[in-house]
């Protein structure tokens, strides 16, 4: 029972495999959450395609593209952390993890700038803010922006969750055994890549469709 966090496991190796498996099951669950919201979007897109295409042109393509690049880079640093942890290069692992959180934070800042821009342009149909959309079919454009804010903020919440967990992991780094360090990096890495992949789907669906 030594070296494992859970009394149920005999060896750290078995515990790591269980952790890895649990994270995949969790990702399956998360995929259903985002799947439901994507489904809502796609059904609405089938019904109101032209309105959605027109509304989509009001999103900032440069900022969205920049953010996509930022997140894909963060996946690279996360994958590096995994590699480095496998080779027990702990100091470098920490740096790779810190870079990952920094890139995640950068994404959030840019997203915040985008939100601010959309709110000031009157494209945010929430909290009773004025909705001043000039294009065709404003009712369904409002639906598009409602979905846009729902989907991107849900994704941002997941990103914040990932940043908090990595920060916590770094804070507990000194007290963790090498087996636990590796186990946590692998599990959090899986989650981080998943959140990135969600964005990789969200970006074309929201920003690029019918452009």
């Amino acid at each position: 029972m030594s070296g494992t966090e859970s009394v149920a496991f005999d060896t750290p190796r078995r515990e790591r495999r269980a952790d890895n498996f649990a994270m995949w099951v969790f990702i399956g669950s998360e995929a259903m959450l985002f799947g439901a919201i994507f489904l809502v979007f796609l059904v609405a897109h089938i019904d109101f395609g032209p309105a959605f295409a027109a509304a989509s042109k009001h999103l900032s393509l440069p900022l969205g593209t920049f953010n996509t690049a930022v997140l894909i880079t963060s996946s690279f640093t996360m994958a590096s952390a995994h590699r480095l942890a496998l080779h027990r290069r702990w100091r470098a692992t920490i740096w790779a993890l810190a870079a990952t959180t920094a890139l995640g934070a950068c994404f959030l800042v840019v997203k915040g700038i985008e939100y601010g821009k959309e709110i000031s342009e009157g494209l945010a149909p929430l909290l009773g803010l004025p909705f001043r959309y000039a294009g065709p079919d404003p009712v369904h454009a409002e639906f598009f922006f409602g979905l846009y804010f729902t989907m991107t903020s849900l994704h941002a919440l997941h990103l914040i969750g990932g940043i908090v967990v990595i920060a916590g992991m770094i804070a507990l780094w000194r007290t963790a055994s090498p087996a636990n360090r590796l186990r946590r990096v692998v599990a959090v890495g899986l989650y981080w890549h998943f959140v990135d992949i969600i964005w990789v789907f969200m970006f074309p669906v929201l920003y690029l469709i019918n452009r």
Partner: protein
Amino acid sequence: MSHAAMPGTYLAEGSGPRAWLLTTDHKRVAWLYLASLTAFFFLGGAMAVLMRIELATPAGDLVSDDTYNRLFSLHGIIMVWFFLVPSIPATLGNFLLPLMIGARDLAFPRLNLASWYVFIFGSLFALFAVVAGGVDTGWTFYTPLSTLYANGFVSTAAFGVFIVGFSTIMTGINFIVTVHTLRAPGLTWFRLPIFVWTLYATSLVMVLATPVLAASLILIVLERVFGIGIFNPDLGGDPLLFQHLFWFYSHPAVYIMILPGMGVVSEVLPCFSRRPLFGYKAVAMSSMAIAVFGFLVWGHHMFVSGQSAYAGVVFSFLSFCVAIPSAIKVFNWSLTLRKGEISFEAPMLYALFFLGLFTFGGLAGLFLAALAVDVHVHDTYFVIAHFHYIMVGGMVTAYMAGLHFWWPKMTGRLYSETSARIAATVTFVGFNLTFFPQYVLGFNGMPRRYHTYPPEFQFWNVLSSAGAVVLAIGYLMPLFYLIWSLFRGARAPDNPWNATGLEWQTSSPPPPHNFETMPVVTRPAYAYDMKGLEHERFSPHREEAAQ
């Protein structure tokens, strides 16, 4: 409690609030859940009793229409999410899963405890909604009623249910990983007890369906709080979309509620008829089939909601299909009894009652899956009766069967067998008296969710209300004799029922990490036909099995 007298067991590991509230022992977490779920069961039950008293007369004389709406909404919300969904998995499942597969604990003991705290946190929101003035949307939160018109604490209640969903997902992940990674040597998948199979199938549904409920409840809260109108036609949204999302979760959710009950019955019936379970593989696989088919039938809740007629036909067909694996189970249970040496201890009585009531409720489900009949009985008491035959007659009866069956293992005490047999019978009589009249009422056209009704329905309503009183007595009795047994019950032997299964091979109650020596499994489940079983003590370290 007087468990200090049981040294070396998990109950002797400390008795203060800290020892219980900070435990990561799956057996103690099961007790935390059991205590909280019992409270919710009687809270939801009290609301049902109030409704039945109101319905004893055609006029609305006890409560106002508004109060009645809140009563049935909270009854549904509490019973579905704060009792039925977690009921067997979080209590019996939590306690037994590691014992049944020969593990020291669940894969993630801390996650298990966390799931209970999340459950309690979510339930605080629901309780606040009750105290602050209630919700009047029904347990289904249908839009646009819930988003535009309802004036109760919809967001609070929906948020509570949303949070409890996390607790469900945590339990589901824990169970799936535990079954995959922690089975004892020799315990292959097809040697697993059916209870483990059903917990596994349930966990799959929990993990894959609950997030869709979360998504739909988030969207409701977003609409009410932030004004994002996904379900609001004025803002371009679609109210019917909610029903699709909601039932995509909530139909699989009824299998979350019934599958573990099927598992309990599959343990109890072979034990008290001294026969191996008939068609083990078919029963195991039909559990998985129910879990898969359950995702494909949500449209049968929407036959009259304006979905396309073609979709209706497909959903009707698929709903008939989902009855097949359930029927396979019922036939296999019946054949298990054939030529058995049946004895009628309390768990067996409950299990037999389950068999009858589940069949009765399931057959009514076929009526409802038929398009034309459903148009006639939709939103009537026929649906209420069907649902309660499965959920109360099926699930709660199985829960009682399991609670009695494993009570000696959980507490190390024996309950009063006579009281338990009387309680089981009272429950059975009370249940049928309550809900059979509702089939008749529904078929004659009495709609659900009204606090008044035309006088010609009074006869059956009075029967039903009288039955509710009998049923309440049937459920209150175990509360007393089970608690009494905790203090005064005779000490239980390790295997009072001469049952197979690893959980019976350890002491009653089990030691903190379940087994003194880790077990090795050498035979299939339910080996009741093996000669001399009743005299044979388990030998945990049989050399030849270790290979």
